[in-house]
C-alpha cells in the first residue's frame, strides 16, 4: 500500500480523523475530469470572451493608440481602455497607484496591458487584439538588476534594514573575512491552470466574479475600486485553482477586474483566460536577486559578523516586492546564528513585469545567501560544509537571537540534522563519492546536506486572522466554509478533517464548499503557508461553538452536566442516552437550537515593528533538512539527481499523505528554481522563455532517482497550533538548496575542492560547465 511507510496515528475511529492520510477531498474528481475549474463552468448565454492587447515595448510613451481595426474585427462587442475605467485605474493591493489595469500614455514593461477586447468567441477576441495600431516613443529601459543598481537606483517601495550587534566592528575584528556576490534567478510559477476570471453582472452595482485566486478578498476590493462600487456589491468565488504557488495572490486582480469591467459595461458575462504565452508575459514571477555578502569568521569557522545587501529585481511596480524583500532578510540567517549582522534590501525598479509572491516569498533567496556564506567559510578552511553548517546552528538555550530580535525558542535543527545525517549515511557516502570522483574522469558526483528553518506567520501582522462558517443540516450533514482557498495543497481536506474530528463524524458527512466573499468576509490571502493554521483554527472554533450548543441542549434534555456530554466516534453520549449525530441534530433543531456558527481566529503572541527592525514576527518555525547526491557530466554540464533524503518537521501532521506531497512537490519545485528553470529576457526586454517549450520545469525523469522522504516523528508543535501541526506549504521548497550545493560539490571536485565554486543559480548545464571551466582555469593558475 502506498501509505504503508507513513505514520498513521489513529486516535479515533471515525473515517478521516485528523492525523490520518486521507486522500484529497477532490481526488476522485481530479482523476475523472469532473473537478470544475473556472474554464469548465457552464457558460452563461451570451458570454463574451476577452483578450488583452499588450505593450510591445519595455519603456515607452504611447503617442497614439488606434483601436479602430480592433473594433471593426469580426465578432467584436466592445473594446475598453484606461478611459473606460469608472473607478481608480489601479490594481495594486497597496493602492499606490503604480499598477494600472490598463496603461495609457506610458508603458513600463513588455506585455503590459493597454486595452481589452471582448468578442463572441475566444478566437475572435485574440485575433482582434492583435490588430491594434500603437505608436510608441521609446524611453530608456532599465532591464536588469545591474542596470538598476548602477543607475539612479529607483526603488519601488521602502527598503528595510535589520541590524543586530555591531557588524562593522565584527567584520573589522574577525580573524578571517570573505566578500562575494551571489546571483540567484527568478522563477515562473507555471501553475498548470493559467489565470482566468469569469464575471457575471448582477443587479444594481453587483457583480459575481469566479476567479482563480488565492486572495478573493483582495480581488473583491480591486474590482470594487475599478468599478467604483462598494466592496459589498462584489462577490468573489473560487472553488479550486489549478495551482497557485503565490502566482495568484495578487496577479489574479488584473484578470478579474478586466472581466468585471466588461461584464458591467455590456451587461453580459465575460471571461478572460489568457493564452499561456500571454500569461507568462503579463504576470509577475519570483524575484531574481544579486546579493553582496561579507562574512567575518574564526579559524574554527564560526561566524562572527555578516553584512548582506539584497538587490532584487522588483519590476515596474511595487506589488508585493516590499514584503518579499523583507522576508529575504528574515531568512538570510536560515539556521545560523549571526552574533552581529546588517541586512539590507534594495527592491529595484526595472522595466520588466512586476515580480510577486512565489512559494517562500523571498525567504528562499535569503537562505541561498546564508548557505553560500557557509560554503565560502568551509572552502576557506578546507572543511566539509556540513561541519561548518552544524557549527553555526542556532543554539537551543543561547546563541538564539535573530537579526530581527526574535528568540528562536523552538529550535530542533541540531537533532533533526543529526538524525538525517546518520540515516542517509552522509559521511560514508562522502568517502565513497571522493573515491568515485578519483576514478571517474568525466562524470563527477557531489553530495550536500542543507537545513531549513522557516518562520511561520504573515509578517504583516493583521493578515494573521481568519474566519469560517459551519452549517449543520438536520440530516447531520455538514458544510464548512472558510476564508482559505484550495490550490491543490489539501487545505479543504485538512479543514474537513478538523471539523469531522470535532463532531466525531465521518469526513464523508463534511462538505467543504467554494470560497466566497459572500460567506466569509475580510479574509487574508491563502499564503505564507498559513492556510491551515489560520482557517483550520477558525473552522475548529465554529464547530466548537455548535458543539457547545448541542452539548448544552443535550445536557438540559437528558439532565446531565454539559461536560458529561461526550462526542464519541459516531455517537453522542449524554448520561445513559446514546444517539447518533443526526439524531441529536434533529432533536436540537426541533428545540430551536441554532445549528450554524461562524468561527474566528487570530494568531497570538506576534508583533512586528518594521521601522525598528524588532519584534516577534513569527509564531513558530518549521524545520527540515535534505541531503542530495548528484552526478555531473563535466563535458556538458548536464546532471542528474541520484538520491535525495529528506527529514521534515510538520509538527504533528494533520494529514501525513498530504504533507508528504507538499514536501516532495516543494522540493522538486525548489530544485527546478535553482537548476533548470531559467527566465531569459532579450535586449529589448522581451521574455523569450514564455511557454513550456522554452521554460523548462522539472519533468518526471528529473525527479530524484531515489527519493526518501520522512516526516519527523514525535515532534508536536510547541505552540498551540491546530492539533499541534505545523505549516508545510513553503518550508520544503527550500530543501531544494541541497541540489544546488551538491552540484557545487561535484563541480568543486574538478579543482580538488580547493576553491569555492560560487555556483550561481539557476545552475543550468551551461552555468555548471562555465563554473567547471573557471575552477579548472584557476587550478591551472591561468
Amino acid at each position, binding site marked *: 500500500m*502506498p501509505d504503508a511507510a507513513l505514520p498513521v496515528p489513529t486516535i479515533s475511529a471515525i473515517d478521516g480523523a485528523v492525523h490520518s492520510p486521507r*486522500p*484529497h477531498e*477532490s*481526488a*476522485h474528481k*481530479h*482523476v*475523472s*475530469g469532473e473537478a*470544475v*475549474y473556472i*474554464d*469548465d463552468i457552464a457558460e452563461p448565454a451570451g458570454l463574451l470572451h476577452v483578450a488583452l492587447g499588450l505593450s510591445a515595448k519595455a519603456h515607452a510613451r504611447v503617442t497614439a493608440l488606434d483601436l479602430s481595426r480592433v473594433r471593426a474585427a469580426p465578432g467584436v462587442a466592445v473594446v475598453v481602455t484606461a478611459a473606460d475605467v469608472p473607478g481608480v485605474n489601479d490594481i495594486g493591493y497597496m493602492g499606490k497607484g503604480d499598477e494600472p489595469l490598463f496603461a495609457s500614455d506610458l508603458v513600463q514593461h513588455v506585455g503590459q496591458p493597454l486595452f481589452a477586447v471582448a468578442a463572441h*468567441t*475566444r478566437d475572435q477576441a*485574440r485575433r482582434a487584439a492583435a490588430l491594434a495600431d500603437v505608436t510608441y516613443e521609446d524611453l530608456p529601459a532599465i532591464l536588469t538588476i545591474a542596470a538598476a543598481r548602477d543607475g539612479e537606483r529607483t526603488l519601488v517601495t521602502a527598503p528595510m534594514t535589520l541590524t543586530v550587534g555591531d557588524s562593522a566592528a565584527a567584520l573589522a575584528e574577525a580573524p578571517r573575512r570573505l566578500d562575494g556576490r551571489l546571483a540567484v534567478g527568478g522563477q515562473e*510559477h*507555471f*501553475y*498548470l*491552470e493559467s489565470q482566468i476570471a469569469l464575471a457575471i453582472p448582477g443587479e444594481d452595482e453587483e457583480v459575481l466574479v469566479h476567479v482563480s485566486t488565492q486572495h478573493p478578498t483582495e480581488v473583491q476590493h480591486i474590482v470594487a475600486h475599478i468599478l467604483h462600487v462598494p466592496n459589498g456589491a462584489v462577490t468573489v468565488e473560487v472553488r479550486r485553482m*489549478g*495551482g*497557485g504557488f503565490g502566482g495568484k495572490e495578487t496577479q489574479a486582480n488584473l484578470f478579474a477586474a478586466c472581466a468585471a469591467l466588461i461584464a458591467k459595461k455590456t451587461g453580459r458575462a465575460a471571461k478572460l483566460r489568457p493564452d*499561456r*504565452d500571454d500569461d507568462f508575459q503579463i504576470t509577475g514571477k519570483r524575484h531574481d536577486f544579486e546579493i553582496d555578502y561579507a562574512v567575518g569568521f574564526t579559524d574554527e569557522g564560526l561566524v562572527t559578523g555578516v553584512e548582506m545587501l539584497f538587490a532584487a529585481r522588483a519590476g515596474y511596480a511595487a506589488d508585493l516586492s516590499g514584503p518579499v524583500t523583507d522576508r529575504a532578510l528574515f531568512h538570510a540567517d536560515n539556521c545560523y546564528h549571526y552574533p552581529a549582522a546588517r541586512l539590507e534590501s534594495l527592491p529595484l525598479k526595472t522595466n520588466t513585469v512586476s515580480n510577486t509572491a512565489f512559494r517562500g516569498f523571498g525567504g528562499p533567496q535569503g537562505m541561498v545567501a546564508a548557505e553560500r556564506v557557509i560554503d565560502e567559510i568551509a572552502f576557506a578552511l578546507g572543511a566539509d560544509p556540513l561541519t561548518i553548517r552544524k557549527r553555526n546552528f542556532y543554539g537551543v538555550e543561547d546563541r538564539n537571537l535573530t537579526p530581527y530580535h526574535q528568540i528562536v525558542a523552538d529550535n530542533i535543527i541540531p537533532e533533526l540534522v543529526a538524525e538525517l545525517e546518520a540515516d542517509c549515511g552522509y559521511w560514508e557516502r562522502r568517502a565513497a563519492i571522493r573515491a568515485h570522483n578519483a576514478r*571517474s*574522469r*568525466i*562524470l563527477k558526483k557531489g553530495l550536500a546536506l542543507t537545513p531549513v528553518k522557516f518562520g511561520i506567520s504573515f509578517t504583516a501582522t493583521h493578515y494573521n486572522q481568519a474566519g469560517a462558517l459551519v452549517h449543520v443540516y438536520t440530516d447531520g450533514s455538514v458544510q464548512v466554509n472558510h476564508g482559505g482557498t484550495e490550490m*491543490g*495543497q*489539501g487545505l479543504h481536506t485538512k479543514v474537513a478533517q478538523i471539523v469531522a474530528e470535532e463532531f466525531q463524524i465521518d469526513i464523508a458527512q463534511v462538505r467543504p464548499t467554494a470560497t466566497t466573499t459572500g460567506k466569509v468576509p475580510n479574509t487574508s490571502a491563502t499564503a505564507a503557508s498559513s492556510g491551515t493554521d489560520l482557517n483550520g483554527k477558525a473552522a475548529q472554533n465554529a464547530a466548537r461553538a455548535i458543539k457547545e450548543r448541542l452539548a448544552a441542549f443535550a445536557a438540559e434534555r437528558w439532565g446531565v452536566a454539559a461536560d458529561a456530554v461526550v462526542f464519541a466516534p459516531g455517537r453522542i453520549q449524554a448520561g445513559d442516552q446514546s444517539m447518533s449525530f443526526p439524531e441529536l441534530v434533529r432533536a436540537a433543531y426541533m428545540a430551536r437550537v441554532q445549528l450554524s456558527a461562524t468561527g474566528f481566529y487570530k494568531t497570538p503572541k506576534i508583533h512586528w515593528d518594521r521601522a525598528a527592525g524588532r519584534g516577534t514576527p513569527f509564531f513558530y518555525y518549521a524545520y527540515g533538512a535534505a541531503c542530495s547526491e548528484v552526478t555531473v557530466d563535466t*563535458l*556538458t*554540464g548536464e546532471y*542528474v539527481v541520484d538520491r535525495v533524503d529528506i527529514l521534515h518537521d510538520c509538527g504533528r501532521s494533520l494529514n501525513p*499523505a498530504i504533507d508528504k*506531497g507538499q514536501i*516532495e*512537490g*516543494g522540493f*522538486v519545485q525548489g530544485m527546478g528554481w535553482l537548476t*533548470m528553470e531559467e527566465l*531569459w529576457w532579450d535586449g529589448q526586454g522581451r521574455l523569450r522563455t514564455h*511557454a*513550456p*517549450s*522554452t521554460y523548462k520545469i*522539472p*519533468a*518526471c*525523469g*528529473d*525527479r530524484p532517482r531515489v*527519493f526518501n522522504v520522512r516526516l519527523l516523528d514525535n515532534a508536536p508543535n510547541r505552540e498551540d497550533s491546530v492539533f499541534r501541526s505545523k505549516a508545510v506549504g513553503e518550508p520544503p521548497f527550500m530543501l531544494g538548496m541541497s541540489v544546488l550545493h551538491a552540484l557545487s560539490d561535484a563541480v568543486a571536485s574538478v579543482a580538488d575542492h580547493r576553491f569555492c565554486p560560487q555556483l550561481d543559480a539557476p545552475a*543550468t548545464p*551551461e552555468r555548471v*560547465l562555465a563554473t567547471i571551466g573557471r575552477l579548472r582555469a584557476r587550478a591551472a593558475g591561468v
Partner: protein
Amino acid sequence: MRESLRFYLGDELREIRDVDPTLTVLDWLRLDQRRTGTKEGCAEGDCGACTVVVGRLDSDGALRYEAVNACIRFLATLDGCQLLTVEHLRGPDGALHPAQQAMVDCHGSQCGFCTPGFVLSLFALYLNEDRPGSERINDALAGNLCRCTGYEPIVQAARRMYELGDRAADRFADRAATAARLAALADADCLSVGAAGRRFLAPATADQFADLYAANPDATIVAGATDVGLWVTKFQRVLATVLYTGRVQELRRVVDRGDALEIGAGVTYRDAAAPIAALYPDFGELIRRIGAEQVRNVGTIGGNIANGSPIGDSPPALIALGASIRLRRGSERRVLPLEDFFLAYGQQDRRPGEFVEAILLPKPQPGERFRAYKIAKRFDQDISAVCGAFRLRLDADGRVADLRAAFGGMAGTPKRASGTEAALIGLPWTEANVRAAMTALRGDFTPLSDWRASAAYRSEVAANLLLKLYVETTDPDADTRLVGDRRLAHA
C-alpha cells in the same frame, strides 16, 4: 472525394461535414462539445494536460492506442480513428478505471489540473504494456508536466494500477470489435472537408497525395502537426489548405531495401524508433529523447526534415549517417543527400509541389561506430541547444578511416563539421589529435546566443562532444552517460 469526417468518440460514431481545417481536438472537445475534462495547459504540446488517447489502425490493420496532445492535433486528422477522453474511463457502474483509482490511492493529484492528462497517459500505458520498468514509466510520463507533486506519487500510481486491475478483463482490452468498426470506416477516397472556403484534404494513397500537392502547391502539408499546430494556436496563422499525410499508408511504412532502410515520410518517431535502433542503437536513444511520448506518437521524421528547423534532432544523425531523401512531385522523383537539402536558414531544396516521400538510411558497415548526443536544459521534452552526431570508422592501424560529424543548433541549418572531419581523417585516433580537432571544430561553426544557450556554451559543448566520442570509443570502463542505456556508450 468524401466530404464528411468520420470517427468514433468512444463508442459513438461522429460524422461531421463542416469543420474548420485547423480546429484542434481540444477546442472541439471543450468549446463545441463542452466535454471539459480535458484541460488546456499550454496549447503547444509541451505540458500534456490535454492528453487524450487515439485508437487507430496501423499499416497491418491492428488497432493501436496512443496518447496524443489534443491541443495541437487537428480534429480532421481523427478520420477513421477512435477518440477516448477522460470521460470515457469510468466503468458502466461508475467505478474508476485502475489508472484513475491508482492516482487516488497514491495521492497522485494535488491541484488536479494536470491530472486528466496524466490519467490518459497512464491509461495508454496500461492498455499497451504490462508492468513496465522505471525508465519506461519515466518515458511514458515525460510529456506530462506536474507542478505540484514532484511526480513520485504518480510514478507509484503507474505501478499500482497493475495491482488494481486485470488488464485482460479491461473494458478496452477487446480490440477486435473496435478494430472492425474502424476498418469499416476506412476507404480509398480522399477526404475533403472544410469550412468558409478552407479545406482539409486527406488523400488515401500516395498517388492521390502527389497529384493533390502538385495541383495545390500552396497547401500546408501536415503530418503530426507538432509544429504546424503551433502556427495555428500561437501565431494565429490561417491555413487555407491543409494536406494531411496520415491516411496514406505507403508513406507510413518502413521498408528494408537491402543496403538501406527506407522510411516513409509519414512514419512517426515511435514507429521509426525500433527499426532504426536495431541498426544504430544510439540513434534509437536520440529518438527516445525527441519530444515526449505524445509527440513521438504523431510526429514524423519526414516532418522533422521538411520543416527545415536548424534544431531538429533527426537531421544531424541522418546526415552523419549519410542518409538521403527522396523527393516527389507528381510522378517525378529525385534523390539527394540530406545535407544538400538544407540550403540556408528557412530554405530547403524543395520545389513547389514537391514533397519528401521517404528517407533512405544506409545500413552500418563493418567497423563503423555511431554516437549521437543531445544537449538541452532538460533531458526529456526539450529542444536541443546542441545536437551532435558522429559516424566513425577506424582502420586496422587505429587511424581514422572515415568520420562524419554533423550538428544541430550550431548554424542556420543542420550542418556537417567539415573542418573537424578533415582534421582527423587519416590521423591516429588519439586524444592529442582529437583535442586538435576540437580546436578545428570551433572554426566550423559560428553559433548564435539565445535562450537555449550562449554561443560560447554551444561551441564548447560541441567540441567536448568530440572528446566524449573519443572516450566512449577508447575507454570501455569510462562512465559517460547520465541517462538512457549506459551500455550504448560502449556499444
